[in-house]
C-alpha cells in the first residue's frame, strides 16, 4: 500500500501550505451562510407563537452548542491520531481546536443564559443542556490547563491527547447522567429549545447557521493551525522560505 500521502499529510510545510490554500474556501462560504442565516433568522422568520422574538437567539445558541461538541470530538480524534501514529501535525490540530471549542461553549452558555432571562425569568437554570454545556467548558479548560502546565511541548501534546480521549469517552456518560439527574429533580420544562416540529421558515435559517458555523470552525481551525505550525517549527529552515515569500 502506498503511504506517501500519509507522510505528506504529516509534514509541517505541506500542512502549512495546504492550510493557506484552503482557508478562503471555508471562510467565504462561512461568511455567506452566516449572513444569510442571520438575515433569514432574525428578519424573515416569523416570531414564535409562545416565545415571541426571544426564540431568535436560538440561531446563535443552537449552532454554538452543536459546535462545542463537534469541536471536542474533532479534537479528540486528532489527539488519538497523534497518539497512535505519533503524528506531530495531528497534535497541532488538537491544540488549535481547544480554544475554538471553548469559545463556542462559552457562547452557547451566554446565549443560553440570555435566552433564559425572558423565558424562565432567571439567567441561570440547572437545565440539563446548560449544565452539560458547563461541564464541557470545564473539560476544555482542563485540557488547556494541562497543556499549559507541562513545559516540554511533546509531553504536553501527548498528555493532553490522553486527556482528550478520556474526555470524549466520558462526554456521553456525563450527558446521560446529567439528563437522568435532571429528570429526577425537575418537571420537564415546558419550553424546549428544539421543538419536534418546526415550520420550514424557522428551520431553514437554523440549518444555514449550522452549516455556516461548521464552515467557520474549519476556517478558524486552519488559521490557528497555521500559527501553531509556525510556532512549533520556528527553528526549521522552511519557515524562512515561507515567510520571506
Amino acid at each position, binding site marked *: 500500500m502506498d503511504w506517501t500521502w500519509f507522510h505528506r499529510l504529516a509534514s509541517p510545510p505541506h500542512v502549512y501550505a495546504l492550510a493557506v490554500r484552503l482557508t478562503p474556501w471555508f471562510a467565504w462560504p462561512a461568511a455567506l451562510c452566516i449572513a444569510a442565516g442571520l438575515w433569514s433568522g432574525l428578519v424573515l422568520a416569523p416570531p414564535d407563537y409562545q416565545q415571541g422574538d426571544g426564540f431568535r437567539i436560538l440561531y446563535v445558541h443552537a449552532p454554538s452548542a452543536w459546535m462545542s461538541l463537534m469541536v471536542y470530538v474533532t479534537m479528540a480524534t486528532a489527539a488519538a491520531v497523534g*497518539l497512535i501514529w505519533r503524528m506531530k501535525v495531528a497534535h497541532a490540530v488538537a491544540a488549535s481546536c481547544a480554544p475554538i471549542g471553548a469559545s463556542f461553549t462559552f457562547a452557547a452558555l451566554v446565549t443560553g443564559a440570555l435566552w433564559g432571562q425572558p423565558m424562565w425569568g432567571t439567567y441561570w437554570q440547572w437545565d440539563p443542556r446548560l449544565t452539560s454545556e458547563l*461541564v464541557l467548558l*470545564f*473539560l476544555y*479548560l*482542563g485540557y488547556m*490547563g*494541562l497543556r499549559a*502546565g*507541562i513545559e*516540554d511541548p*511533546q*509531553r504536553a501534546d*501527548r*498528555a493532553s491527547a*490522553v*486527556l482528550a*480521549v*478520556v*474526555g470524549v*469517552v*466520558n462526554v456521553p*456518560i*456525563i450527558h*446521560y*447522567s*446529567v439528563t*437522568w*439527574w435532571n429528570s*429526577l429533580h425537575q418537571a420537564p420544562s415546558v419550553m424546549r429549545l428544539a421543538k419536534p416540529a418546526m415550520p420550514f421558515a424557522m428551520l431553514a435559517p437554523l440549518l444555514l447557521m449550522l452549516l455556516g458555523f461548521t464552515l467557520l470552525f474549519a476556517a478558524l481551525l486552519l488559521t490557528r493551525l497555521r500559527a501553531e505550525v509556525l510556532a512549533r517549527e520556528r527553528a526549521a529552515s522552511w519557515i524562512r522560505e515561507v515567510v520571506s515569500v
Partner: protein
Amino acid sequence: MNQRDGHVAETLGALDAPGAQPRDLPAPARRADAIEAARLALLRDLQLAFRKPGQLVQPLAFFAIVTLLFPLAISPELARLRELAPGVVWVGALLGSLLALEFLFRDDAQDGTLEQYALSGQSLTGLMFAKTLAHWLLTGLPLALMAPFVALSLGVSAAALPGILLAVAVGSVALSLIGSIGAALTLGIKRSGALLSLLTLPLSLPVLIFGARATQLAIHGTSFLGPLELLAALAVLGVTLAPLAAAAAVRISLE
C-alpha cells in the same frame, strides 16, 4: 556506518576474541507473572502507607471537617440537614478522595519507582491497577466506612446506614480510578493540586450524581438498587479503561 557525521561506536565483543569462552550462564530465574508483580506493587504501597499513618488520616479528617461546615453554615436543625445529607456525604467523600490523589504517583515518580515499573517487562497497566487498588483500600474504603457516621451526625436514621456505606464503597472505586488518570497526567507539574481538581472533578460528576441519588433513596428507605447498579457500571468501566489511560500517561511523563 563510519561516513556519518554523527557519533558512532562499535564494540568488538570480548567473546569474538580468540580463546575467549563464555562462562556458563546461570540458570535464568523464573520471571514473576503478572499477578505476582501486581501483588507486590499493591503490598509495597500498603506497607509504605502504614509506615506513615499520618497521611492515611488526612482524608478522613478532611471529610469530618467538611461535614462540620454544613450545620454551621446552614442550620443545626436535623430535619434540614437530613435533606442535605446525600450532598454532604458525597461532596465530602469526593473532596477527601481528591485530596489523597496528589500522593498517588508523586513519590514513585520522584524516586524512580515508576521508571522501574515501566521498564520491568511487566504490564504497566496491571501495575497501575494494583496501585489504584491500594489507593482505594487506603482512602476510598476508609471514607466509605466513615460515611455512615457522617450521615448519622446529619440526622439520618440508622436503618439507612448500610446502604450509604455500600454506595460510597462502590462509588469510591470509580473515583479512585478516574483520579488515577488525572494524577498520572499531572505528573511532573509543580503545584498541580488545582489542575488535578479541574481535570478530575468534571469526569467524576456521574459518580456524584448516581451516588447521591442512591444515598438519598437509602435515606428515604426505598430501594436504591437502580443508581447503585449505575455506580457499579461506572466502576467496571473504570476498571477496564482507567489503568490503560493511567499507564499511557505515566509512560508519557517518563519521556
